[in-house]
């Protein structure tokens, strides 16, 4: 299959699969996520957890942060924000940051941005993951900047945050990371991919290490929201990559699909690719 045909297919997919082709709404923009039921908390319990947040027992402080986050109450949120403003030890900062983001409020962002620059990388990573819950442009910019962090774990957190926050500005740096073989970028691009992006990922053969391109394509194929015509395009791309990586990915796709929709055209395409030696 030549490139021009892929373009045609990708364009067609964009037209016929609006649900996949359109970016999903970013956090804070009306996504109808079903919130888990809040546990019943007594005033005394709340007070105890709030007190523990500033205590010297750091494990208890971290546990309290988690509990407070689960309550979703404004009082708990204010307490978390207050604790963060006092500079807790790093082992407590992370849980507070994530707990805070469980019920995001616009006023949190300024403080979260400070922690997104923390010298301890786990704190930095937690802050970036937390920022994914905020639609604030500064939060999104900081997530994109996190992809440039010298620490690989932080880049991984930033990539995950980019997916969670549907940060489209992250796509370009994610491709740059993909070209360097970063697995986190493959996962993130697969998570962000609409039809156009899926095609662009398929076109990375030769520009990025095969392993991460194959991984990204396989991750997209695993998604339930991908139209079968696009699946066939991606299967074709895997076949073109070929070798052990491409073949293994095709086998994996066939194995996963057999349990759900074994008669999909793309599955048949994959079987044909495997039968003819991976399309080479």
């Amino acid at each position, binding site marked *: 299959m030549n490139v021009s045909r892929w373009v045609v297919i990708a364009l067609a997919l964009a037209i016929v699969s609006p649900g996949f082709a359109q970016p999903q709404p970013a956090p804070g923009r009306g996504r109808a996520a079903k919130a888990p039921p809040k546990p019943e908390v007594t005033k005394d319990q709340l007070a105890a957890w709030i007190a523990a947040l500033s205590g*010297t027992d*750091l494990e208890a402080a971290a546990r309290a942060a988690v509990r407070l986050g689960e309550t979703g109450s404004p009082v708990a949120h204010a307490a978390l924000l207050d604790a963060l*403003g*006092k*500079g*807790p*030890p*790093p082992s407590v900062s992370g849980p507070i940051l994530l707990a805070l983001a469980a019920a995001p409020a616009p006023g949190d962002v300024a403080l979260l941005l*400070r*922690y997104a*620059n*923390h*010298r*301890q*990388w786990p704190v*930095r990573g937690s802050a970036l993951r937390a920022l994914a819950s905020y639609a604030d442009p500064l939060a999104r910019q900081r997530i994109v900047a996190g*992809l*440039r*962090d*010298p*620490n690989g774990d932080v*880049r991984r957190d930033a990539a995950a945050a980019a997916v969670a926050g549907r940060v489209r500005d992250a796509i370009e*740096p994610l491709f*740059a*990371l993909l070209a360097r073989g970063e697995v986190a970028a493959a996962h993130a691009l697969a998570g962000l991919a609409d039809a156009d992006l899926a095609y662009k990922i398929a076109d990375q053969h030769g520009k990025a290490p095969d392993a991460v391109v194959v991984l990204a394509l396989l991750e997209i194929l695993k998604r339930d929201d991908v139209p079968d015509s696009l699946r066939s395009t991606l299967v074709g791309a895997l076949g073109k990559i070929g070798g052990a990586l491409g073949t293994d990915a095709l086998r994996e796709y066939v194995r996963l699909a057999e349990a759900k929709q074994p008669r999909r055209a793309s599955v048949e395409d994959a079987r044909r690719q495997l039968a003819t030696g991976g399309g080479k």
Partner: protein
Amino acid sequence: MIRAVLVMALVASCGPKTVFQLSADENNRYELGHTLARRQLPARATPINAAGQPQLFAVIAGQPRATRATIVAFDLATGNARWKADANVQSRVVVGGDFIATREDDALVARDQARGAVRWRVDVPGTLVGHAADRERVYAVFRRGTAYSLAAFAGASGDRLWTADAAGRLGAPAAHGGLVLVPFLSQWLSIVDGARGMQLTRIRGIDEQISMLRVTSQVAYFGSKQGVFQLDVRSASGKRAEATYGSVVVPPQLERTQYGPDAYDAVQAGYSAFDRARILWTGSPAALSRDPYAVHYFRFVFGFAPDGAIRWAYRHPRVELVASEHTGHAIVAVSSSGEVVSLDPANGAIRGKHDLGVPGTVVGATIDADGWAPAGTGPAPDPLAALVGIVRDPDARFDRVKELAVIALAKRPEPAVTSELLAILADPRLSPRLEGLVVDRLVERRDPQGLPALVAQLGVHADHLAQTTPARLGAIAKAIAGLAGTPIADAHRAAAVAALVAHLEAPTTPAVDVVHVIAALAAIGDGRERGALGWHLVLYHADDELGGDVAWQKAIVGALARGGPPERALLQQVAADPRTRPGLVAAIRDLGAGS
């Protein structure tokens, strides 16, 4: 061989006499005056050779080394090689009237100066300590066991004219207008009649040893590594204060630089590394304290003002200069690759550049060009650019010279100096020692006009995708801190604070650099920095790593303690937090800021 036997027979018949004795008349002003008056000196500075042509004789190593070397005679006036001759040269070349003389294998060999042909050869009766020539004769000091002798040979025939034995150690001689100057037992300078071999008088060095000789066509100098005496009537005292004496300021970075070869050092009887570290001057030593001078140091030549400040600098490309001479109007130098360069002693301008035109490595050269002025003129080099070129030279052997150049550069008034020092600082090859020096000089400059250049250097941040990391952040921060109290434009200050805060907050800034950044912010922030520093304290006061760093504790507490009531309140709050690192609490209490 037959000639050697004849010479020995002649010597035996003449009967050597012990001329250099422990007891003799010395420091006799009348005798010295009478002796010096015998010299036949030219009315104006001129080369030794009878033709009066400026020339040099270079020795080029054999290729490979085991093979015979080559002597090249080069005419400086025309820029052409006159002749070349294969010779196993094992000494300096000395220049006479119409001949040159060298030690080749175990013989003293004279060659015709016009064509290079061997004129005569006599076996060396022992180890050659050193030799010299005037227009008519060759003088050589030999050592046999512990016995030293000075002998004279006719330049025209090689006939041994006389021999003078010594009761102790002799150094390499010098010839001057018919006299032979010979260091004796490090204490004395014996002055011998070149025609007859008689000691005419001698000088005992009272203030310092006598181990160095240098002669030009008109002036003879003697001295040591400490300084130079002119051989005149006043030198009869042997004392610096009563003689025509001078010394120059040589920076410690140009170690082992000397006024001339050590006459007692066997290594310096030949061309050696000592020829590459020389003080170059002309005229009276007494004028050294008020006249400019130069120092040739391997690949470099520096022109100094009398107070020791560098006025100009020349950096020879790639290879070392193996020989140099001050002719009075030019500094002539020869490189190991055969380039001959003539510099203007006033400003370092290149007045002439030639090539010996012979392949191979030049091991040394004798320059006979006293009084010569090259015809060419060149533009005076930009001293700033010359110094920068030296500092950024990739040759890693000369860090000490680069140090000297940094010091000289930092003393210059041009506004561009700060940028140049920063550019030097950005060089990843810079050694830690030089880095420290550059930083110290940047701090010392206290140049507020240089702040934008410093801030520009702060523009680089750690970026995995761009593959960048900040370079020399701590050093730049130190330089900015050095601007405390200087008048800084508001816009420059704001930009500097913003750039510093970005590094303060950057997660990858090393703790040691964070300390310098805090100091810089406190030094120039003028209050703009307090918010960022306050948050910085809040974020890390309970952090095991940065919060536990003693230097950081002192820096952040010190910086905030200089603030107002809000900063003091913050310090109190932090000191009261049970999770604050204990050292930080102590630092706050030590400063009285948290009470």
